């Protein structure tokens, strides 16, 4: 037996000696597969919710003849569905684990981080749209075109949503940038 064979034989023995218990993993597996489906459904539910809620608010605006409600409904339809749709696409478009090489997986991940950054940029713009709407509605209230009582609720909801979107986009963007750096570093190891 050569030194090289001895080295590998001992390495194999030491390699196999590590703790490789997977029972706990098998138990959690079913939950994990269900959770993945649920998260994807969640994004799609956001698309449906945005369209339905927007349509209801527009319909209320039409039947009551209120331009502010029409505007609020249109903005909701404009903001929520595209964001949730993009999030759903990003979640379901996984690399083909059984076909790709590891380099291919990293390149796809790099491309996805670019999509993610665009998504965050879109989210920020939609936050701006919401804040502009809040401002427009308050100008309308100040000018006496719209009833004050009803607008407080709508503008508060839109304002809180806009702040939430800004915070979420800031937090996610940091994570995506770290992921992009890491992908680039790992890809460099293959060169």
């Amino acid at each position: 037996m050569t030194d090289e064979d001895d080295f590998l034989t001992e390495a194999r023995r030491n390699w196999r000696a590590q703790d490789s218990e997977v029972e706990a993993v098998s138990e959690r597996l079913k939950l994990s597969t269900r959770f993945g489906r649920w998260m994807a459904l969640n994004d799609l539910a956001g698309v449906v919710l945005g369209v339905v809620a927007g349509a209801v608010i527009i319909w209320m605006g039409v039947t009551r003849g209120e331009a502010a409600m029409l505007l609020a409904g249109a903005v909701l339809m404009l903001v929520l569905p595209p964001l949730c749709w993009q999030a759903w696409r990003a979640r379901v478009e996984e690399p083909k684990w059984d076909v790709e090489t590891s380099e291919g997986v990293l390149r796809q991940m790099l491309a996805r981080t670019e999509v993610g950054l665009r998504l965050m940029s879109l989210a920020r713009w939609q936050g701006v749209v919401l804040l502009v709407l809040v401002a427009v509605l308050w100008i309308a209230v100040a000018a006496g075109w719209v009833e004050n009582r009803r607008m407080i609720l709508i503008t508060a909801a839109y304002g809180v949503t806009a702040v939430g979107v800004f915070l979420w986009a800031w937090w996610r963007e940091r994570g995506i940038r770290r992921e992009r750096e890491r992908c680039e570093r790992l890809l460099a190891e293959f060169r």
Partner: protein
Amino acid sequence: MATLEQVLADYGPALARIASSYERDRSLRDELVQEIAVAVWRSLPNLQDPARLRPFVFRIAHNRAVSHVARQAGRPRQDELSERLADAGPDPEASLLARERSDRLVEAVRRLPLPYRQVITLVLEDLSYDEIGEALGLTSTNVGVRINRARAQLKAMLA
């Protein structure tokens, strides 16, 4: 067609060892094994030849592990020292020595550049050159070159 239960029964421990070459933290390693299992479960219908299950599973394992490492960037790590010391077994001295040797090897494997780490883990799991080539999308010549370099680096680290 193989089921996920069969795959986990046959390759579960090997998948856990592959995962540990990417992930030091025990709970994150388990999380990675779980992600690999889900990816295998989703990909199993694409397996054309059941005789090629082994390279198929290991290809998915490495690909999923690489993406896990990229995604985990910047996440805080847990200290697992207390777990190691508490679980020494009936002959603590021998167990600790064996564990120390094993830990040194795994740590050295983790420090290898990705291409070498991938081939050496598959060598340690007893895959043939052809199987390694199939799992990593490499020619047999490339596999040979990478194995030689990986072995040399590993030997130097463990010396």
